[in-house]
């Protein structure tokens, strides 16, 4: 499958992924001489960056990290490519200085250490040649502060016995939202859903299958559920309780994605500051076109009116004094 993200640094790279589930600081996180990962929380400590495509959500820590990336590449022990969910200045600048191809807006939660990746920095894509994409919908049903989870029966094709949101396969060019509504009707008997929001797709991995999950949030008026053959049990839980259940992969991220969108928590930040905080919307940008590069002015912009006026006055004074 091919995942479309955004170009940060152009160039091509092929190789095996080294994937950290947590944000990474190049200062202290990797040995600057050998390129060996030192940060234990990454889950890949002891492995080397050389020859790998380094996958992590986003950079963090000291801005000296940019220089560390440069030094690693210069010594030939740096990563071949970088994949982020949301690029920030430290890693982006480091990759530019080092000339390492880099792509962001990829849901890094779907990639694993050892995956074969083909990174195309020019087009902002990451390809997994040995993985097949399976599109699914996942409908989070909310009633006041609780959401519905269902336990999958032994008659279904995958994740038997796991807890999940109401879900189903997308077929052909079907509209994900209407599929979600139909799944809710079939699996719960609920009608009269109030659509709240749809989240960007989330990648949930099961060996050589990549579930491309389209998340939806609906409010429902009733908690009375009639299950069909696909599920054996249901619960209305608070989102914070999900940790206590054995769930399908990334259910928490699916819930978080739609909850965040529906509650709009960023209201108090000014746009500039919102722009500066790392963009936490990892997305399979299947529908978003690639962002175009900035137009770069070749001539300096026009001087401001004030500058023009001051210049005019000065010229006038000079003219007077000369004459």
């Amino acid at each position, binding site marked *: 499958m091919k995942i479309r993200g955004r170009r940060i640094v152009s160039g091509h790279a092929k190789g095996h992924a080294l994937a950290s589930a947590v944000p990474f600081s190049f200062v202290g996180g990797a040995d600057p001489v050998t390129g060996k990962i030192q940060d234990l929380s990454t889950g890949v400590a002891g492995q080397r960056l050389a020859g790998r495509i380094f996958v992590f959500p986003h950079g963090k820590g000291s801005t000296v990290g940019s*220089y560390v990336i440069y030094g690693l590449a210069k010594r030939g022990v740096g990563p071949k490519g970088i994949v982020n969910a949301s690029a920030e*200045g430290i890693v982006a600048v480091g990759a*530019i200085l080092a000339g390492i191809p880099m792509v962001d807006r990829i849901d890094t939660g779907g990639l694993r250490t050892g995956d074969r990746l083909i990174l195309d920095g020019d087009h902002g894509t990451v390809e997994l040649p040995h993985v097949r994409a399976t599109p699914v919908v996942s409908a989070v049903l909310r009633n006041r502060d609780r959401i519905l989870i269902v336990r999958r029966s032994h008659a279904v094709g995958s994740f038997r016995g796991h807890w999940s949101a109401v879900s189903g396969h997308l077929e052909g060019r079907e509209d994900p939202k209407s599929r979600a509504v139909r799944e809710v009707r079939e699996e719960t008997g609920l009608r009269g859903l109030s659509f709240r929001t749809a989240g960007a797709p989330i990648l949930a991995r099961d060996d050589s299958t990549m579930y491309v999950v389209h998340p939806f949030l609906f409010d429902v008026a009733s908690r009375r559920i009639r299950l069909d053959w696909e599920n054996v049990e249901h619960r209305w839980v608070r989102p914070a309780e999900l940790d206590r259940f054995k769930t399908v992969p990334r259910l928490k991220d699916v819930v978080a994605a739609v909850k965040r969108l529906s509650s709009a928590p960023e209201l108090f*930040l*000014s746009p500039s500051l919102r*722009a500066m905080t790392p963009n936490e919307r990892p997305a399979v940008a299947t529908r978003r076109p690639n962002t175009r590069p*900035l137009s770069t002015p070749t001539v300096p912009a026009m001087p401001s009116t004030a500058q023009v006026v001051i210049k005019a006055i000065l010229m006038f004074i000079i003219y007077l004094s000369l004459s």
Partner: protein
Amino acid sequence: MRDEGTDSQRKAMQILIALGELSSAKRLLPIMSAHVSGASYKMIGDPGLEFLEDFARDARVVVPTTVNPLGTDLAQWKELGIPPEFAEKQSRIARAYETMGVRRSFSCTPYLIGVRPALGEHVAWAESNAVCFANSILGARTNRESGPSALAAAIIGATPEYGLHTDEGRKPTTIVHVTTKPRSLDFSLIGLVAGERVGEGLPFFCGFRGSEEDLKWLGAALASTGTCSMFHLDGVTPEAHRARTKGLPSITITRRDLVAAKRSYTDGTEADVIALGSPQLSEDEVRTIARRVDRTPPRIPVWVFTSRIVRDANPEAVGMIEGHGGRVLADTCLEVTLLEHRFGTVATPSGKGAYYLPSLCKQKVILDDIDRLLERYA
């Protein structure tokens, strides 16, 4: 773009475009000056040194550019017990910047040594206290740049237009009422408390006034505990009258908050040194300290951090401070200098210093008013 200019110009342009795209900037704006951070060998280490030396081969700045303090005073490193290898690498960093055409300012307070962009002028500055001062007190416009992004801007002479370069990005987000009349140390404390509470927001302060120097201390502390890069002060800062505050959430800072902050940033009991810097002191501040030290000579050394220009212009004040066992250090500043080999506990009136000394210099801290410190250690 691919085939034009030098290698470093292409890289600098790529950096500006990438950072602009990350923030949805639509164009680049010409800048009047740049201020670069990342000059202390203690902070950027071998990776930074290596990059700067490589970059200096063909990188040249095209606008007036100043640079942050180094890791030691280049003229006094031997007396300070700095390892020769450290000093050698430090002077190589200084030389790399000089080769690129950067002024040998080695100061975190470019605004005190003649670089004062005008109201509405666009610049690209790194160093959080300088960014906060330029935006808030001068009304110039700059984002909080990193070392490499400020350097890239200096090489191209432009910066991407987003954030604090736009009117939208300079709007306040939180009203901060201060219910006590602040003096000296209080400005640092207000900054520390407001930064913790406002975080990434842009505070609109009201209820007090302060001189440019007072606000320098407030801004430096604010930009340490918060990621704020600008503030408004009602009736004082140049853009406060234009700011719309209707309907904004508000918080209150009381005398009790300031007392608590002072206590929470103090973890030392007996100081080995009184250190004044972070940011570097102005000429007036150096002279005032010299008079006070002369009046009540302290029994522990007083270290004063300032710019080379101020040190050289005030031999009398320097003589007074050093005559009483202190030092006036130039080219460097409090937390980016090598202190850990000499002291365990530092007493300082700088909120920013108190915030960074424990992590960057492994110091215990006593945060207090300078008059109180001089009395206590008289």
